[in-house]
């Protein structure tokens, strides 16, 4: 363990902890844009600069390892003025369209601009503009809103192991793009969307479907493969408009293309809405009462005529434990046969 002092408080943190992590452990807030706790430090946004006694210039707390006896100051008029300058510079190369931005209310840059009260910007000048839109079907890449924090690049490389995007060019012309600036063609896991601190990366599916107001979040478990990722369904009215995942879960907030983008089936117009009974070879709508009476009656007929073992139930790996339990209880206890199975084998 290492003992250090941050803003006058003495703290103990494990070896290898960065100054930023040390501060966060003790709820001392240092602003950042490029840092993400699950990715390697970058040190590009310069917002997390802190003063350390004995070091002549401010250093980025996200890259500096805590050391024994270190005395750190996270806020001072000088630091706050530097941070303000950095934010003004970023905003001088950023569209001022929070009004219509998908991420308004959920944007780190907007939040910081708010806290630093940046209404008038001392800096103005050329802004990056890109006429070409990325034509991939999943991820809206509005690169004019990109602040080049590099989180998406790192998550794609370090977490997903795909490296579909990287920094290209340099200096003011720097941009993050797929090779040869073509349309994104990747696994579309959307991890980049999850870590983007601004409105640069969003899901095409949730464009103009609702931001913060009237949106409920419901935590649940994914209905696709066996990984069992935690999902947060964003619901407006009776519609799931977006899926995210929290970082403090088993899947660490990471999802795959199906989990993140494959939710349209829930509100699909093709959903079955009424019971159907086959009449003269055709399936026709019926009331629940009629349908269930019919099923129960026919099952009883079969059981009476051929015995319970002439009936079988096939259950589903996509239903809940409770439903599966009840299903086999019904087949075993009510019908009276052990002819019950599910699709485990495929």
């Amino acid at each position, binding site marked *: 363990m290492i003992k250090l002092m941050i803003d006058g408080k003495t703290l103990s943190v494990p070896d290898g902890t960065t100054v930023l992590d040390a501060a966060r452990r003790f709820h001392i807030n240092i602003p950042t844009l490029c840092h993400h706790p699950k990715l390697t430090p970058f040190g590009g946004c310069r917002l997390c600069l802190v003063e350390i006694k004995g070091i002549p210039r401010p250093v980025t707390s996200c890259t500096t390892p805590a050391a024994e006896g270190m005395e750190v100051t996270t806020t001072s008029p000088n630091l706050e003025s530097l941070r303000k300058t950095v934010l003004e510079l970023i905003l001088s190369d950023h569209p001022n369209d929070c009004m219509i931005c998908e991420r308004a209310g959920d944007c780190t840059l907007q939040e910081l601009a708010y806290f630093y009260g940046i209404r008038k910007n001392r800096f103005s000048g050329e802004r990056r503009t890109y006429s070409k839109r990325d034509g991939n079907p999943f991820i809206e890449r509005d690169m004019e809103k990109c602040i080049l924090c590099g989180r998406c690049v790192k998550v794609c490389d370090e977490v997903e192991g*795909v*490296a*579909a*995007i990287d920094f*290209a060019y340099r200096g003011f012309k720097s941009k993050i793009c797929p*090779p040869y600036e073509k349309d994104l063609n990747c696994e579309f896991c959307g991890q980049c969307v999850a870590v983007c601190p601004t409105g640069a990366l969003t899901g095409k599916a949730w464009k103009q479907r609702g931001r913060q107001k009237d949106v409920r979040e419901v935590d649940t478990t994914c209905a696709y493969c066996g990984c069992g990722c935690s999902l947060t369904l964003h619901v407006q009215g009776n519609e799931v408009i977006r899926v995210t995942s929290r970082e403090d879960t088993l899947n660490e907030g990471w999802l795959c293309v199906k989990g993140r983008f494959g939710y349209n089936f829930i509100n699909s117009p093709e959903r079955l809405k009424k019971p159907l009974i086959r009449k003269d070879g055709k399936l026709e709508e019926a009331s629940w009462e009629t349908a269930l009476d019919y099923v129960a009656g026919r099952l009883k007929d079969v059981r009476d005529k051929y015995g319970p073992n002439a009936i079988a139930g096939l259950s589903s790996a996509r239903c809940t434990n409770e439903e599966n339990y009840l299903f086999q209880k019904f087949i075993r206890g009510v019908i009276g046969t052990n002819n019950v199975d599910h699709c485990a084998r495929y």
Partner: protein
Amino acid sequence: MLEEKDMNDVLDRIIAKYREDEGNVIFLLQETQDALGYIPEEAVAYFSKKLDIPSSRFYGVLTFYSQFHLKPRGKNILSVCCGTACHVKGGTKIAERIQRDLGLASDGETTEDGKFTFEIVRCVGACSIAPVVLVNNKAHAEMSADSASKLVTELKKKETGVGAK
């Protein structure tokens, strides 16, 4: 342009040379450019597939370093140095003149006939003989806009066999 197979042979040789090298991306690209004069997109795709290095990394490196060219370049490369010493001695004027003489809109462009590429470079370390113009890497010392213009005329003559206007 090389046929695909010929190009792949060149690339295979380069791969064989650097396959085991850690951090070989820049080497691969430098050798490719030496061999082909520029870096075709197909070469990057080929390296990426053969070496399991994402294309995005190649593209990032390619666009970071000014040495690399994504398109074929002219037969003659005219580089005007605009380092400090050349700048204070009029390098910019020379650059403007050459650009005008070649009828090119901006730095790094190649004439339509593929004979000339014009570029501005930042200091070739020949400051004591500034301003300097490099023609195919040979330095011409203490140039002026006029002498540079003459140089272009001579080169054009050599290329086309007639005096260019």
